[in-house]
């Protein structure tokens, strides 16, 4: 599945419709469908919120490649991205010290086997991959 979506949080309805169609077409089980939605939403909303100067759309690619689910988002005309700016999340802190920021990336990192960021020619490409072999 390849789709281009408006750089807006309210584009998520369109994004989810495309994911649902992909899930049905590929016959993915519910846990993988859930993981796909989570990765796409977390990465999409991060791009919308943090790369505010980018173009007006974000591309989303979903594929099954070599028994891996590959989720790839491409953001155009953006400033360089520093992956080290993503602060790790400590999920063992007491309630009063918990922070919400960074939780989305934490979840994607734990559910997927790879999460990589590539930047060149003012284009940021974020890829999450999950092994589907049992």
């Amino acid at each position, binding site marked *: 599945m390849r789709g281009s979506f408006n750089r807006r*949080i*309210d584009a*998520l*309805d369109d994004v*989810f419709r495309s994911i649902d169609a992909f899930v049905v077409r590929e016959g993915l089980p*519910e*846990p993988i469908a*859930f993981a796909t*939605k*989570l990765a796409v*939403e*977390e990465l999409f*909303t991060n791009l919308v919120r943090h790369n505010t100067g980018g173009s007006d759309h974000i591309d989303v690619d979903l594929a099954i490649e070599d028994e891996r689910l590959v989720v790839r988002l491409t953001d155009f005309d953006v400033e360089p991205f520093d992956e080290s700016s993503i602060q790790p999340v400590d*999920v*063992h*802190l*007491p*309630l*009063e010290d*918990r922070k*919400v920021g960074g*939780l*989305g990336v*934490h*979840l994607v990192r*734990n*559910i997927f086997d790879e999460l990589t960021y590539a930047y060149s020619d003012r284009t940021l490409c974020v890829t999450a991959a999950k092994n589907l072999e049992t």
Partner: protein
Amino acid sequence: MFDIRRAENGDILLSGRLDASQADKARSVLRTVVESCRVDFGDLEYISSLGLGVLLEAQRRLSESGHGLKLANLSDHLSDLFRLAGFDTIFEIE
């Protein structure tokens, strides 16, 4: 489609998909909660980190007055997600 409402017994009922575009809707209802309350996830299909953040905000606020949210009817997917987020140590889960 996401919905959040109070049941007659006081429980909060969640249904549908709680994604980033629906977080404000969830927040507006949870802000009206002032005492310990059960939140029923039985009809909730999906939640992302912003939805989790709304729950965290409510739990933190309620804990200041000795109250808290009790989370009920979590699916296997949601249970796994809550565990990864470390929510199993800061919420009571039925």
